[in-house]
């Protein structure tokens, strides 16, 4: 199994953003700029797809085999939770939304799954503490900001 660098061809890219009108040299002093570009492989989309698909076939995991060892990530998470976690209503939510007055409030997202009554509680006028995670949760638990 080769690394992605083995397929690297100078000039290839899978996803190129628009050409900026200015370059870093026009916007920052020269003494802050790096001399060489980052040492990343230059791959086309096909190279990337093939590389990771090949890697996935070498993987031994619970999706393809019986896997009796378990750490926290291998315990019993039902498959549907992966779809729920990937809902754009959650993935596109900025962590500071909880602190913006009027931005959440009584129009907070409520997700109902037919197997569970509620995934993200947002009672009118209530405080949806259970739903917060990561940075937003730490700020709330430290008494900063309001849900």
């Amino acid at each position, binding site marked *: 199994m080769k690394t992605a660098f083995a397929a690297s061809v100078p000039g290839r890219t899978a996803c190129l953003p628009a050409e900026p009108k200015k370059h870093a040299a026009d916007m920052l002093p020269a003494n*802050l700029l790096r001399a060489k570009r980052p040492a*990343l492989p230059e791959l086309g989309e096909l190279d990337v797809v093939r590389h990771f698909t090949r890697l996935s076939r070498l993987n031994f995991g619970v999706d393809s085999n019986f896997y009796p060892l378990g750490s926290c990530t291998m315990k019993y998470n039902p498959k549907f939770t992966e779809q729920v976690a990937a809902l754009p209503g959650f993935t596109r939510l900025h962590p500071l939304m909880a602190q913006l007055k009027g931005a959440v409030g009584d129009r907070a997202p409520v997700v109902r799954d037919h197997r569970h009554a509620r995934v993200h509680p947002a009672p009118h006028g209530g405080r949806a503490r259970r739903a917060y995670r990561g940075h937003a949760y730490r700020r709330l638990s430290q008494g900063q900001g309001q849900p």
Partner: protein
Amino acid sequence: MQSVLKTPGEMGADIAVAEGQSLGQPLSFGGPYLGIMTCTKDMVRQMPGRIVGRTNDIEGRTGYVLTLQAREQHIRRAKATSNICSNQALCALRTLVHLCLLGPEGLVRTAELSMERARYAMERLTAIAGVRPLSTAPFGNEFAVRLPVPAFEAVDRLTARGGMDDVLLVACTEKNSFEQVGILAEMLGGIL
């Protein structure tokens, strides 16, 4: 930004940490995200987590293996001050794919586009009476401005803008049929 800036090592740092969320992780209300930690070689045994090394096997083939296994989790066990978790591997994989898709040119362009927009924002915001840049030092894609009111108050006023309670945003894509649009129009007409 690191794609255009001198590396922390070149600037004299021994340890560098970075937030990796912008490398392909969705916002997700605060996480899971990806942290990046790096240090000089002489400190590598004190790094938490797993370290992967490259070596050759007895047949000369390249192999990758977890190395420097004297991790504090194995020695201090319950008294360790960090833990190892495989969940980060999912975030790391996502960032890896993101970097492979963009490549060095894509990453440099992303940084430059971000910097362009930040400079435009600095220009437009400091043109407002009472808004001043906090400093004249060079900046990447983030900058601070001093407002004539507390910043939280300004943000509250922006989000409470209102006047949009009676506005309905309609979006159509190639997945909507003309028939469906017709049904929407009929039903809306029926309830208004």
